[in-house]
């Protein structure tokens, strides 16, 4: 079940992002579905699955982006890894902690893109990207992540989370 879901995500999410995500846009900025998916999977399933699905999603995203073919691989893989670590570190993984995690990772990813993509441009262009791209994208990612976390059927309960924690990285 889970591998099939992951394959479907990798094959379907980027086409969804390029063609239909504009229906969820805010001021012309769309949510980053791959970031949200990598963060959600990492947070719920752990850092290994998070980083693997993040790399796979990042690669497909890079294929349909004008940027270099490694940038999203690194960023989305890191997002999956950090979300997984955050999920393991949390005493109690809740909607609020996930929202904070996805929001923080979205800002971090946005800053990486701002530096890498707009780094050579004028300072005014870089500063303009903060309210015009980074902020709305973070808001959309957070809102979408919260909705998906709430909807996801296999998120662990409090007890399961407590049972899961000792075998995590924190031990």
């Amino acid at each position, binding site marked *: 079940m889970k591998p099939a879901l992951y394959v479907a995500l990798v094959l379907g999410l980027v086409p969804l*992002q*390029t063609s239909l995500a504009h229906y969820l846009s805010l001021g012309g900025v769309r949510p980053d579905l791959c970031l949200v998916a990598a963060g959600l999977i990492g947070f719920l399933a752990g850092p290994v699955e998070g980083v693997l699905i993040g790399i796979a999603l990042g690669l497909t995203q890079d294929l*349909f982006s004008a*940027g270099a073919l490694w940038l999203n691989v690194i960023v989305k893989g890191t997002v999956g890894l950090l979300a997984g670590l955050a999920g393991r570190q949390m005493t109690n993984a809740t909607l609020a902690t996930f929202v904070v995690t996805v929001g923080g990772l979205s800002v971090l990813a946005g800053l990486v893109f701002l530096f890498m993509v707009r780094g050579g441009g004028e300072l005014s262009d870089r500063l303009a990207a903060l309210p015009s791209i980074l902020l709305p994208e973070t808001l959309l990612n957070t809102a979408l992540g919260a909705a998906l976390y709430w909807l996801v059927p296999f998120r662990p309960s409090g007890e399961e989370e407590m049972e899961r924690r000792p075998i995590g990285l924190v031990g």
Partner: protein
Amino acid sequence: MLLLCVLVLSLVFVLPKQSRTLLQSIGQPLAQLLSLPLTVFASLDRGVQEVWNGYVALYQVSEENRQLRHELQVLRGRNNELRELGVAGQRLAAVLALKERLKAKTVAAQIIGRDATNWYQSIVLDKGARDGIGVEMGVMAPDGAVGRVVKVTPFTSMVLLITDPNNAVTGLIQRTRDEGIVEGTADGRARMKYIPLLATLQSGDVVVTSGLTGGFPRGIPMGTITRIDKAEGELFQSAEIVPEVDLHKLEEVLVITDPLPVGDEREGAGGRSGSAPAEARP
């Protein structure tokens, strides 16, 4: 009895006048007598017909109404489809006309998506390496330049739009023949940089491709100058450009696979006039 009947009937023939008078005298009161039930039955028939037409037959009207509404919806849908086909036909005709007018080799492609991130202004085309598309090829619409191909897969290609800050194409001011570099800006417009200080620009001047870089032949309209920035002490001036093409409403484009010389801006897209001589392919 039978004999009596035959006798009466034969009286009609034997005494026609008398028998007719007799029959009339008997028939008139009978007719009056019968008129009452006849009226009642007639009114009853009208009532039944009214009830049938007004109520029972209304079911058919209702059904007919439902069918007509359904047909109306279907026809409206078809009408919209035909309108859409008409608009698409106009667009495709414009693309075809441009393709025929342009001497460069081109491949028509449809836009199937936007960049997978928010950090690049690029579009995804439904044609790729298998259709002869390669990196650095210019992309244009009937109104002017769109961008250049930056990434190719066998079946798709990514086009970085001229409004992306990472894009740079050499441009030529059509009226003054001054060259510069056209780059995208963060607000979705473009800016022409490195224009000589002595160039006499004015708002409304059209910027076209110079043909030197970017996979475009010379003379493809890029945009119109809306603002000129001439700072004190700078070696060059710059100008803000509004792209000629509405990049948000694009649906079909032409990828220039071989930018052969087009001769003159008069033969370029958009039919703008110019005075540049024919130039060899870049």
